[in-house]
């Protein structure tokens, strides 16, 4: 095993929990003949993230109304993941997020930094479901004080809030989705010739890298523009998914994403065998947080490289990795419907 025994013991218990509580998960494990692996090789048990798009996977008897439904980004209901988080799972997620951010970023959470969101104000859903975007904004809000949206409803810079940000003397936590931060914030500031003081600012961004990649902007380029517009800013990317809210991996100062005590990552080949450090492959993401739904070990459609464990030059422990992109959704030739 390549991660601590404690981590895998926790994973075993989590698998066992979901095996007992979630019929769908149990059917999959039994159907694949994987139940003996729960004890012997818990890291080799995983389900496809896409299952949350078409199925209601719940591992608790609680009333659905007591849970919050998280919806991943997507255009139609069928293309969005439906994740049911109960109160306990949400508390664990919130605690983990706080701990990860505290450990990874130089933030003083005691005096709580002022919280700025580089996005437009987001309306709350009437259905009670929480969109991934809004869930993330809300999730990080507990780390800071207040919530100020840097963009207005039209996606333009909100001059009033921008002025506040310019004049900040306290520590600032700024959060946004990578492409929004780049297109609607950094690029606009660059065009307008506005510079911000980043001395007390941590800029955390994630998600939306697919869209950014379509503009041909690599992470390094992003960081370069960020530090030219906001000199001295601590700019960090993170990797996470709605199915594993809370257990995010944050980029270190050497540009690698790191796992932590709540999560892990395994790179697999096309036959789902584990790959060696340094090899490119399909990302399996593990989180110790999901309790009300079986999202603890997921096969994603992301491609990544894991370079090693506990020996990153930044000195931070954990596995360190890069996400290279997503498997292309090629249409497999075959015989199917006309419409």
């Amino acid at each position, binding site marked *: 095993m390549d991660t601590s025994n404690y981590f895998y013991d926790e994973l075993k218990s989590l698998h066992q929990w979901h095996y007992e509580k979630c019929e769908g998960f149990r059917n999959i494990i039994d159907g694949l003949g994987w139940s003996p692996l729960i004890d012997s090789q818990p890291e080799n048990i995983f389900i496809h993230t896409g299952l949350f798009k078409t199925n209601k996977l719940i591992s608790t008897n609680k009333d659905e109304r007591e849970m919050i439904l998280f919806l991943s980004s997507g255009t139609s209901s069928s293309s969005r993941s439906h994740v049911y988080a109960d109160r306990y799972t949400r508390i664990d997620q919130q605690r983990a997020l706080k701990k990860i951010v505290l450990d990874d970023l130089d933030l003083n959470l005691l005096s709580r930094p002022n919280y700025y969101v580089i996005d437009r104000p987001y309306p709350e859903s009437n259905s009670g479901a929480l969109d991934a975007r809004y869930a993330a904004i809300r999730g990080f809000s507990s780390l800071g004080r207040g919530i100020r949206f840097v963009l207005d409803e039209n996606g333009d810079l909100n001059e009033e809030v921008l002025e506040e940000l310019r004049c900040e003397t306290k520590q600032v936590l700024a959060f946004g989705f990578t492409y929004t931060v780049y297109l609607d914030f950094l690029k606009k500031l660059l065009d307008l010739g506005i510079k911000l003081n980043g001395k007390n600012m941590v800029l955390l961004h994630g998600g939306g890298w697919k869209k950014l990649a379509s503009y041909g902007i690599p992470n390094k380029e992003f960081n370069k523009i960020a530090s030219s517009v906001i000199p001295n800013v601590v700019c960090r990317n993170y990797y996470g998914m709605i199915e594993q809210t809370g257990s995010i991996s944050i980029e270190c100062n050497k540009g690698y994403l790191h796992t932590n005590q709540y999560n892990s990552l395994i790179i697999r080949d096309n036959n789902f065998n584990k790959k060696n450090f340094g090899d490119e492959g399909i990302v399996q993401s593990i989180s110790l947080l999901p309790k009300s739904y079986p999202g603890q070990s997921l096969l994603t459609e992301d491609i990544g490289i894991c370079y090693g464990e506990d020996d990153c030059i930044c000195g931070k422990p954990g596995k360190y990795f890069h996400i290279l992109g997503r498997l292309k959704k090629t249409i497999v030739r075959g015989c*199917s419907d006309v419409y």
Partner: protein
Amino acid sequence: MFIKSSIDLNEAAEYLQSNCLKSSRVNLERIDKLVKLSNSIKDLAVYQKDSDLLALSVFSFELVEQFHTWFKEKSQIYFGKGTTFHIPSGNIPLMPFYSWLPSYLAGNPNIVRISRRLDDTYIGRLVDLIDKVIGPIDGKMNIFYSSKYSEQLTLIASKVCKVRIVWGSYSTISTIRSKYPTEAVIDLCFPTRHSVSIIDVGNYSELDNTGRNLLCRRYIDDTIQFTFKACSSPHYTYWLGRKSEKYLLVLDFLERISGMIARSETEMGVMSTNNFLDNQSNLLQRTKCKPIQLIAGKSIYYISSKEVPSISKEQMDCHVYFINADYEEEIVNTWPSDIQTLSLINPMDYDFAVKISNKLGSKTPDRIIPIGHALKFSLLWDGQHFLETLTRQVFI
């Protein structure tokens, strides 16, 4: 020419009706144009690094070659049968062109419906290329349409065509037949079907290491990287014969395949993750017996021939079945219905092919081919000879 969504319904309808023009005599002129077109598609494929386009150009070259073979044996005069209306499946990006090419070669004017699921711009670029090569006169007689008035245009095209070709599942075909009646002389349908492979365990055991690897590589090719998405992919694989080490030989075969899949390029991983999602979605509903292996996200089940009739279509689409058959009779007695292609170990034992088809009688599939040839284009598809079907012969 390409009728896009922006075109008004009346204008589009006029184009379609004016398309009922004369068909051409089958001659070598269209072949020359097709050679040019194949080359242009190939260039575009290389430039855009597009494997789908490359596959289309290969298909087009093969079509030309097979047309030559067919045509040089003919002393009679052939004409196209008339306006041919194509309704291709929507999940294959270039399917409209696979359907159109043989019909164009057969001298027919064509109307091709483009599914709304396909990318207009991508299709449009290729239609522009076709127009450029075949010229304005032919261009007007070969109409591709993707329109918000698709329903109305499909009704019109179904009325004016002489031949209609529909690709899709049985339910799709039945919906089209009831929604869009046609007076076409031929209403040709290519439904989704399944295929079988028979591996003689004796022959397999005699293959050396290289031979076994080659067979496995060809098997993977037939299955399209283990997705089994083509009608001609071997959805059922019978292991025929009696040998004490038979199960070990099956495992040897699977071991080689899983190694090849594992070593394939990362981008091919999308096939495995899609397979895995389908597999797990199916398993969510009910538990099944333990698979012998998981390869490229598909569960492999080794079952007795008696279990074949109980396999549902959904299971067939999500899993892979290796079937133990000691005797040929077991295969014959459990032969699934409506099988399109039978593939046999390569080099193919022709005597066995004849023997098994004699035993299967009317259940004999449309093609018996060596493993590795399942996806190879043939003018003969689902028992229909494209050029014979899409042309009329003049008796002098």
